[in-house]
């Protein structure tokens, strides 16, 4: 039982914190009324996923419990450690994509504000109903 707890819960704390961050962002996307708050929640969600991927690629130097990677080059000299480069390359692309989506959606929010003079979702729905 104790060994299971160590191996499955404590050793993978990065994954648990990634899940917590994802759920915080998801809550903000669903429950918040303000459109900019929703976009901040979307960014938090994306960052949680990035944290999960980078944790997958990291070598477990600390407790030796997070290692899941094989070495890229077979003939690495003794004592050298390399992280898995694939998650790093993927996340590098995903960060750029995330700032692009944020920019486009903020432009749409500004346009919505010009049209409805509010960025609260419930008030926008109310004004839509009147029209």
């Amino acid at each position, binding site marked *: 039982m104790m060994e299971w707890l160590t191996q499955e819960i404590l050793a993978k*704390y*990065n994954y648990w*914190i990634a899940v*917590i*961050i994802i759920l*915080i*962002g998801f*809550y*903000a996307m669903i429950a*918040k*009324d*303000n459109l*900019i*708050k929703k*976009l*901040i*929640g979307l*960014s*938090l969600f994306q*960052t949680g996923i*990035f*944290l999960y991927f*980078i*944790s997958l*690629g*990291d*070598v*477990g*130097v*600390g*407790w030796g419990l*997070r290692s899941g990677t094989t070495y890229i080059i077979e003939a690495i000299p003794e004592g050298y450690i390399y*992280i898995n480069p694939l998650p*790093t390359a993927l*996340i*590098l692309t995903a*960060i*750029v994509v*995330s*700032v692009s989506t*944020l*920019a486009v959606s*903020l432009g749409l*929010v*500004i346009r919505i*504000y010009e049209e409805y003079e*509010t*960025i*609260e979702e419930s*008030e926008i729905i109310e004004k839509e109903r009147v029209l």
Partner: protein
Amino acid sequence: MIVPLDLLMLFVIVVIAIATISAKDLFSAVILFGAYSFLMAVVWAEMHSIDVSFTEAAVGAGVSTAFLIAAVSRTARWEKG
């Protein structure tokens, strides 16, 4: 990675994320989000992903904070309800 540093910074990150989504002032929410992104960049540098850390510090903490401040200054600053 260094486990105590990792744990401490991830805990601070979770606290800042909760503060970000519960702030009523959107300007302070945006600044807290910039602090969140910067701490995330430090976490990635400490996880040996230096290139991701550079990109996050430039793009996440810099450009998206500027975009969000621009959007808040053109719309309403205070969240209702």
